[in-house]
C-alpha cells in the first residue's frame, strides 16, 4: 500500500483532522499526525488487513531546537507481510519547564516495543507518555537531573558530590 493510500485510509476512518501535514522532501515521506489520535491511528494501521504495520522499529524523541520550543516523537513502523515502511511524526510546543514536560499518549497498548523506547525518550529527551505502565528512567540513574538530549542541557558537573570528568 503506497503513501497516498494510507493517507486516504486514515482520513476516511478518523476524519480530515487526523493528518496535520506531511513531509515528502526527503527519501522517506513522513505523515504528521494529530498527537491526541496517535494510539488509535497505530492500532488501525496495525490491525487493518490492507496495511498490517505489525512491527515497530523504533521511537525517537526529538527536541527541535531552542528557538522553536517544539518537541516531537517519530515512529518508524514496518509491515512484515507487505515489506513496507512508514514514518509517523507527532509534535507539540512546550515551554521547557521541568515540571511541565511535553506529553503525548503512549502506544504501549499497541506495540510492546514502545515500552522501553518510550522510557528511553523520557529518560534522554524528557517527553512524558500518558498511560505508560512503568515510565521510569532506563539508561541513566533514577536520580539524574535534567534530560541530556535536550538542546538547552548543561552538562552536569557533579553527580552525588562526585566530580564528573
Amino acid at each position, binding site marked *: 500500500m503506497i503513501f497516498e493510500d494510507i493517507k486516504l485510509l486514515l482520513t476516511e476512518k478518523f476524519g480530515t483532522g487526523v493528518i496535520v501535514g506531511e*513531509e515528502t*522532501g*526527503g*527519501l*522517506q515521506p*513522513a505523515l504528521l499526525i494529530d498527537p491526541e489520535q496517535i494510539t488509535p491511528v497505530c492500532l488501525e494501521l496495525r490491525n487493518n488487513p490492507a496495511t498490517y504495520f*505489525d*512491527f*515497530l*522499529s*523504533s521511537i*525517537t524523541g*526529538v*527536541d527541535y*531546537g531552542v528557538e522553536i520550543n517544539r518537541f516531537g516523537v*517519530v515512529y*518508524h513502523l*514496518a509491515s*512484515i507481510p507487505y*515489506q513496507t*515502511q512508514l*514514518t509517523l511524526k507527532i509534535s507539540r510546543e512546550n515551554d521547557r519547564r*521541568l*515540571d*511541565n*514536560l511535553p506529553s503525548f499518549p503512549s502506544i504501549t497498548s499497541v*506495540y*510492546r*516495543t514502545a*515500552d*522501553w523506547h518510550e522510557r528511553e525518550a523520557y529518560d*534522554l529527551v524528557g517527553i*512524558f507518555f500518558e498511560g*505508560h505502565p*512503568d*515510565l*521510569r*528512567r*532506563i*539508561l*541513566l*540513574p*533514577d536520580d539524574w*537531573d*535534567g534530560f*541530556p*538530549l535536550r538542546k538547552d542541557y548543561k552538562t552536569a558537573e557533579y553527580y552525588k558530590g562526585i566530580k564528573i570528568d
Partner: protein
Amino acid sequence: MTVTNPKYSEALNNYYQKIANAEDMVLNMGPQHPSTHGVLRLELITDGEIVKEVIPHIGYLHRCFEKHAESLTYQQTIPFTDRMDYLASMNNSHAFVMGVERMLGIDKDISKRIEYIRVLVCELNRIGSHLIAIGTYGIDIGAFTPFLWCFRDREHIMGMLEWASGSRMLYNYIWVGGLFYDLPVGFEERCREFVDYFKPKMVELNQLLTDNEIFINRTANIGVLPLDVAINYGCSGPMLSGSGLKWDLRRIDNYSVYPELEFDVPIGKGEMGTTGDCWDRYKVRVDEIEQSLKMIEQCLDRLQKELKRTPDFDPRAKLPRKTIPKPQDYYIRCEGAKGELGFYFMADGKSEIPTRVKARAPSFNNLSVLPEIARGVMIADLIAIVGSIDFVLGEVDR
C-alpha cells in the same frame, strides 16, 4: 533542580513500593555476574526456585552515543558506532555508512570491489559474533570445551580483520564513500584457507554441542517465544527467525551486494521441542554461520576474479569532500549480527553535524522481551534464556 511534578515520580515510587512490599525473595543477578554477559542487572522476585518476575536494569554501560553524535560530523561518528555492538563492529559501521551515503546520494557510485570487501568483512565479523554467542552459551549451560574451541576459531577472524584494518575489535574500516584501505595483499588467499579450515570445525562443534543430549535437555522447550509475541516486542535477527519467521533484511531490503549473493535464511523449526525455544535460537545462529561462510566464498570468488585488485584501485577515491546531506530525515535499517540495526538521521542541510542521530539497537529490543518469556521459569533456566537472547550490553546501553 529536582522533579517537582508528582506525576513524573509516580512510576518510580510504584517500583520502590513493589520491591519493598514483595513477600517473596528479591534476588539480584548481576551486574557483575558472568552469565549476564556484561553489566546487566536482573532483579528477580523469586518463590523458591521459581522466578515470578524479572525486572531488568540497564544503563551501566551508557556512553552517550546519541549525545556525542550531536557534536561530531558523520565521519567522526563512525568510531562511536563501532563501540555499540563491539563484537560485530563492521556491521555497525556498514549500516551507519550506508545511511549517510544514501542521504548524500552517492550510494550508487560506490565501486563493486568496495561493496564486496564490505560484505566480506561484515560476514566475517558476523561469524565472529555468532561464535561468541555459541561459545558463551555453552559455558552458561555448563559445557566448557565449546567456549575454547569457538574462541580459538574466532582468533583467526580477529587476526585477519586486524591485518586489514589495524585493530582487533574496533575497526573504523568502512568509511563514508569508501574504505580505510584496500585489503592487504594475500588476504583473499588467507581467507580462503580459513574457510577450508573452519568448515570441518563446524561439524565438530555440532557433534560436540548441537546434538549433545545434555545440551538439548537444558535448552529444548525452554524459554519458548511465540511468533506473535516476538513481533509485538520488536525482536529481530535470530530471535525472530528462531520463532519460525523467514525474515532477514539482507533479503527484504536487498541492500549492498546481497541481491547478487546466494544464501538461505535459516529459521527455527522446533526440531528438538517447540518452535521458538532456546535450542531453535541457538540453531539459527549455527546455520547462519554456514550461510555466512557461503557468502564469504562467493565474495572471494568475485574479489579474486572479475574484481581483482588493480594498481590504480583507490578505496578512498570517492570519499566526499563535504558530507552535507540535503535537509531530510532518513531511517536506515540493516541486518546486524543480532538483528535489525537501525540509524535514524535528522539532517538540517547546513552543517556536517547531524541534528539528531538515533540508534535502534537490536539487542535493546531483544532484551525487552525477557520479562515476558522468563515469567514462571526456574532460575537455572533463566540463565539458559538470557544466554539464548545473545545481547551485547554495549549495544543495549549505547
